[in-house]
């Protein structure tokens, strides 16, 4: 290719590959950090880290963080915070146990009611934040106490003996309907293939749309690289899951659907746009006709719904409702969001970023446990990771200016 055409091409593609990587440094660094940490533990544990059954339990153990951090990213992007989600998980989870064990409600109905209850809790907090104008920090700090208190009042300590079908939501795998190919569960393989195909199609379509409208696209090498890496990652994960004892964890399907749904909401709906607009410049959003009170209210209702889902998963994983459940869940969700690149000042943040943040924390948790690092040092390390991640983000931004 001649130099002239190269420069022309570079222009429409918004700069060289190096320039492109520079501009998107943050997201690549987070993914790279996840990969490096994982590989290091893989080496340090002599391959224990990525054993199929360990990967499944990594997903199952951290499902609540994935679910909560989705809502938390949205809250933080809008310029708020929610400190109450851990207590809400305990409260809703407690009521779920009571519904099934003492009020004889069929568990699928109880699950739906639990999520609705989460929404009601969210509406309560949203009311104070949006319509009374109390800072979310205060409202949810109050909520943290309030719902923990209610959880203890209703549950006492534990309500146990939940049905195994219900518990399978968190611990179980999809049934092996399609048999095995070698030692691989075919259901998992099919789902993995669908996911990889979905990624390919959506990426190619987006790029074609950009090219059609003569818009800046990422350099082709980066595009191709991203696709290869993405498909390879899905393929590897699929192989791990398909060769695990149970197969495809049910909770991964739930998390996957939520991630896709909420990424779509944040990127492609008016509601999502309004969240970014409010976080980026609140007065400007108001003067553009954004109904800020309503958006704030709905944000907290949404956080409540997701806390309801997390409550169901947490309860199912424990097999019982525990009044002390959900301790520090809010901090896990907030840390995941920030490690995943959400801006402290609001306006910037992605659902997928927060999921990567949650994975980094999850891998650290598991790796440090396998390598027998004592809990006190685990806490120190995770605290440092959070600070370094946000410091990197801030320094990177300052350098950009």
């Amino acid at each position: 290719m001649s130099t002239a055409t190269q420069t022309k091409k570079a222009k429409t593609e918004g700069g060289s590959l190096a320039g492109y990587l520079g501009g998107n440094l943050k997201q690549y660094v987070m993914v790279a950090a996840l990969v490096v940490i994982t590989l290091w533990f893989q080496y340090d544990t002599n391959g224990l880290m990525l054993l199929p059954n360990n990967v499944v339990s990594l997903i199952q153990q951290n499902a609540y963080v994935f679910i909560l951090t989705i809502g938390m990213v949205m809250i933080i992007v809008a310029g708020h915070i929610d400190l109450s989600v851990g207590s809400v998980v305990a409260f809703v989870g407690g009521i779920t146990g009571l519904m099934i064990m003492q009020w004889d409600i069929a568990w699928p109905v109880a699950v739906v009611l639990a999520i609705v209850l989460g929404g009601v809790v969210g509406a309560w907090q949203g009311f104070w934040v949006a319509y009374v104008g109390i800072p979310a920090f205060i409202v949810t700090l109050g909520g943290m106490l309030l719902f923990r208190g209610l959880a203890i009042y209703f549950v006492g300590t534990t309500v146990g003996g939940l049905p195994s079908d219900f518990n399978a939501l968190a611990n179980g795998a999809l049934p092996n309907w399609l048999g095995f190919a070698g030692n691989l569960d075919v259901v998992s393989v099919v789902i993995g293939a669908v996911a990889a195909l979905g990624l390919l199609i959506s990426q190619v379509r987006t790029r074609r749309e950009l090219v059609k409208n003569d818009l800046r696209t990422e350099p082709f090498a980066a595009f191709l690289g991203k696709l290869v890496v993405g498909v390879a990652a899905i393929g590897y994960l699929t192989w791990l899951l398909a060769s695990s004892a149970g197969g495809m964890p049910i909770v991964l399907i739930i998390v996957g659907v939520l991630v896709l749904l909420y990424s779509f909401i944040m990127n492609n709906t008016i509601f999502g746009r309004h969240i970014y607009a409010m976080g980026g410049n609140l007065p400007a959003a108001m003067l553009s006709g954004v109904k800020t009170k309503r958006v704030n209210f709905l944000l907290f209702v949404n956080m409540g719904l997701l806390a309801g889902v997390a409550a169901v998963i947490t309860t199912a994983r424990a097999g019982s409702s525990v009044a002390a459940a959900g301790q520090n869940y809010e901090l896990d969700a907030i840390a995941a969001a920030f490690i995943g690149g959400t801006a402290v000042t609001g306006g910037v943040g992605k659902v997928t970023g927060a999921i990567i943040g949650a994975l980094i924390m999850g891998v650290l948790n598991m790796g440090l446990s396998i390598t027998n690092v004592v809990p006190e040092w685990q806490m120190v390390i995770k605290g440092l990771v959070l600070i370094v991640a946000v410091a990197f983000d801030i320094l990177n931004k300052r350098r950009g200016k």
Partner: protein
Amino acid sequence: MANDTTPILEMRGITKTFPGVKALSDVTLSVARGEVHAICGENGAGKSTLMKVLSGVYGYGSYEGDIVFEGETCKFKTTRDSEERGIVIIHQELALSPFLSIAENIFLGNERASGGVINWAQTNRQAADLLTRVGLNEQPDTKIMDIGVGKQQLVEIAKALSKKVKLLILDEPTAALNDEDSAHLLGLLRQLKAEGITSIIISHKLNEIAAIADSTTIIRDGQSIETLDMHGAEPVSEDRIIRTMVGRDLENRYPDHTPTIGEEILRIENWTVHHPNDPSRVVVDNAALDVRAGEIVGIAGLMGAGRTELAMSVFGHSYGTGISGQLYLHGKPVGIKTVSAAIENGIAYATEDRKHYGLNLIEDIKRNTTAARLQKIARLGVVNAAKEITISEQYRKDMRTKTPSVDVQVGKLSGGNQQKVVLSRWLFAEPEVLILDEPTRGIDVGAKYEIYEIINKLADSGKAVIVISSELPELLGICDRIYAMSQGRITGQLPRAEASQESLMRYMTMEKSGATR
């Protein structure tokens, strides 16, 4: 040597350049010892910049020229340096901390303390003395938030006195005050003068200047035009000052335009708005205004006249409390109380402050373009991304926004291009009435011409356009009809043919009847 006949302050050949703009050009100012010296000029003429140079906000080295204070050439690096010499500036927006007491504010940064421990007895006693001196009857421990703006102004002066002020600079000291407080303040300035304190007062209120100033320097387009002796043989008339303030040739900086004026689209009557934080203060006073299809109507007024407040209160009550009056669209009365209702009813308002109230600077051009009416390109709440791209591309081409793509962050654009994004947004909202607040502020001359062309095109497409501007030539150059506002009231209305800078300035400086003389 400094003695009573030499000036206390001389600024010689002051030139201050900002990137792309020459804010001050060879300005000379000479202030006699013990006088009250007024500085007059249009918005943006360079008055505040000059005072910032003097007080060290723009430190030595960032400007050209000399500052000679009490016979010594001064090189102030910061405001602290100038304050040490006894030059204190009181800004238009008061710099007091609302939750601290009067005494704490007076000595803020200059605490009465020994070894870092505050001596409260001394603080309060000295504060009380200063309060007596400025004639403020409040306890030193009263919180700033509990006293009105007029009294706060006096606290600022007390604070200046605590620093052993020799030259007191007041930037628009009475702009936010009622008549009584203004009169008191002017009285205090006379008293300080008797005590030997020299003051410089920047003011738009010509009657005030006539009442208190010993001499007046007029600044226009960053140049000092002349200094008038207010006690000279010939009395200085307000007309004389106005003529000098605006005396500038109209060049051909505006595109030709023949309007096609249709039916009335928007009209307001008895429109009254109160200040959001101080509901007793009337910000817009019984205003009436109308605008027709295809018409470009201007609103002229000096700082604090209530133009932006009027526009924003019409735009879905986005400013003010206790808003009363009637709003008509196409002759029918409507009640529009939210921004979204205003947009749905075809009213758009492009703010004067793009960065803080207009754009989301961390988002890209396309998202800013569609922000005011996303539902136009959405179905069931889902935004059609492809449509968004093609539409914002179209606006980019129409407006000739200079950027490689609509994916570029708005914060990275120049002022002119940012303004084009703001205009794109409001055009996309398809309004019938478009209110443009200072549409060319901070934009270079070439881009200004393009903005004027866009405004003309809008009017030709049948929209009613209201332009708020501090630049009179701009209003005269593009508007078909111009309203003038002063102190919240609409004081006059002139068709373009009859309007001149002088006639507008006369309406813009018109006082409420019964004002202090």
